[in-house]
């Protein structure tokens, strides 16, 4: 009886850790999804912005000893937002609507990714950097332990999604974004300033990925090329959920993060990446349109 109890407890623990990871993956996935769904640009520098968000937080923590997470978010998120808007303005905008611009923008953002990665390498060095835990300690509801950090990550993730949903449904910019993702020409005809919305989309997406970079940094270390792996995972999540579909992204983040947690618990961490790749191949072979999106 006791044995089974421990087993059940472990499973619940793994489930919780999966859900917590899912909330961060979902934030990151939404950022990737909107940038593609609305501005039609696939941003290869996404993983680098993930790293840069974490590096900026690390910089604040190491410079000011009194620094804490709320202030870090208050400072880093606007900076990331501005960085994203700047990227759209300087790097992407002039390429838009030219021949094969979707591929040109991919190459140019890939160039940007290399630039940002190597800039991080030069400024911060090759050694992996840690961030302090968001909160130390844990609580014990119903007999199993839950770290407050996980709980906070979950709350932050959920509230970001709720706020983002409200933003899409209620605000002018949010509604413009929806309109553009449904029918770009129509949106332009009715007078929606699409260029401006593209800028905001880039900014928002970059802020979201920077945020997830900070949230995941206390768990994993920050290194100059460390953004590519989460980027790949989130890409699989978004592909699985259907590129451009926000609800699909949410579901697939939940499904895949929980599966990931169970695989790393039962088979070991080395199997996590092959698992992602297998999911990816499966999605490709059986449902390239994803759970609820349309490809091509």
């Amino acid at each position: 009886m006791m044995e089974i109890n421990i087993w059940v407890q472990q499973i619940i623990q793994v489930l919780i850790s999966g859900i917590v990871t899912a909330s961060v993956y979902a934030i990151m996935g939404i950022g990737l999804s909107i940038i593609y769904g609305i501005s039609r640009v696939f941003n290869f520098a996404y993983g680098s912005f993930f790293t840069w968000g974490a590096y900026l937080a690390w910089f604040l923590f190491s410079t000011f000893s009194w620094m804490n997470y709320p202030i870090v978010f208050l400072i880093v998120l606007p900076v990331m937002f501005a960085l994203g808007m700047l990227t759209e303005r300087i790097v992407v905008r002039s390429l838009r609507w030219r021949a094969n611009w979707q591929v040109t923008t991919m190459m140019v953002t890939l160039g940007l990714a290399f630039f940002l990665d190597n800039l991080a390498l030069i400024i911060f060095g090759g050694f992996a950097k840690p961030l302090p835990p968001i909160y130390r300690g844990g609580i014990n509801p119903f007999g199993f332990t839950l770290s407050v950090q996980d709980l906070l990550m979950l709350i932050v993730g959920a509230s970001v999604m709720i706020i983002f949903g409200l933003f899409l449904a209620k605000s002018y910019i949010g509604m413009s974004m929806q309109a553009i993702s449904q029918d770009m020409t129509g949106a332009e005809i009715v007078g929606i300033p699409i260029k401006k919305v593209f800028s905001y989309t880039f900014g928002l997406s970059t802020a979201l990925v920077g945020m997830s970079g900070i949230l995941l940094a206390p768990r994993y270390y920050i290194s100059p090329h460390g953004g590519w792996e989460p980027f790949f995972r989130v890409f699989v999540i978004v592909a699985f959920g259907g590129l451009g579909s926000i609800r699909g992204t949410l579901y697939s983040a939940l499904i895949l993060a929980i599966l990931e947690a169970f695989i790393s618990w039962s088979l070991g961490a080395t199997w996590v990446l092959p698992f992602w790749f297998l999911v990816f191949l499966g999605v490709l072979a059986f449902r390239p349109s994803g759970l609820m999106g349309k490809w091509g």
Partner: protein
Amino acid sequence: MGVRKNMQFRKELITLVTVFIILSVLPLFIYKNSYFIGLLITCLIWGTMAAVWNFTMGYAGIFTFGQFAFFAVGAYISGMLAKHLGVPTGISMLAGGCGACLVGLLIGIPCMRLKGSYIALITWALHLVMGPMIKVAGPLGTGGSTGLMEIPSLGIGGFILSRTSLMPWYYAGLVLSFLILIVVYRFIFSSVGLGFVGLRDSEEFAKTLGINEYKYKLLVFGISAFLTGIVGSFYVHYAGIISPRILGLDIFLLVMLMLIIGGIGVFPGAFIGSFIVLILNDLLRPLEAYRFLIFGAIVIVAIKAMPEGLLGKFNKLTDVSQRT
């Protein structure tokens, strides 16, 4: 059409042969300088790879970023066969090419139906997972993250090339590169190539004539994976060592830069680009970490400065610029 195509073929072939004649005479003047010969061999390897990439991307319009994954598959298969099983290098190289081709087809079968930008994403994902997969597959003989070492040298009919003298390597690489480019040429100026021209000029009409876009793309993708795998297996026997670092972003950046600087045309764009980039790479070596920062910036600036020049020759078949 046929005549014009034939003339163009002859013109391009003359360019190709001229470049290779120059390349085959060049070492006679600098044979004493092994540093330059080494640089030239590197140029040949990456230039051929860039040229095959260019053929896939610029001519057939398949936006693949997975060429390095095929390169690594070819290199690893050939290296492992020769090292662990003692397979003659000629056969192991062929096996490397076939293995890369198989991976290419596995990815290509579901993927070639999708639009251009998705192909780019998927092949890039293949590139990203290939390194970790090789590390996990350590027990199978890939050598894990340290890599495969002491790989047998290339043997041609009982004569084994020694790594101390570079000239035989240079000429072996030159011959291989020439053969690969001839295969690429044969393809471009064959019925398949004509099919792509048809698809470009009038997609609907070409399709009603029975040109199967999917089949053609898959064919080109498979061939390109095969050729890249062969280049990879030549590299592995030349270098004698391979590790997952070959999938690092630095080399990828360099080869992409060859493509961008060389411009996307069939030939000799990327091939010449490889010489420019690798010499630049050598000149900038003293800058250490700043080198790749500069290369990243060059990519951005080059694409922004000549987006049409770079991609101008991309055909309409892959034109994804229509607003959706």
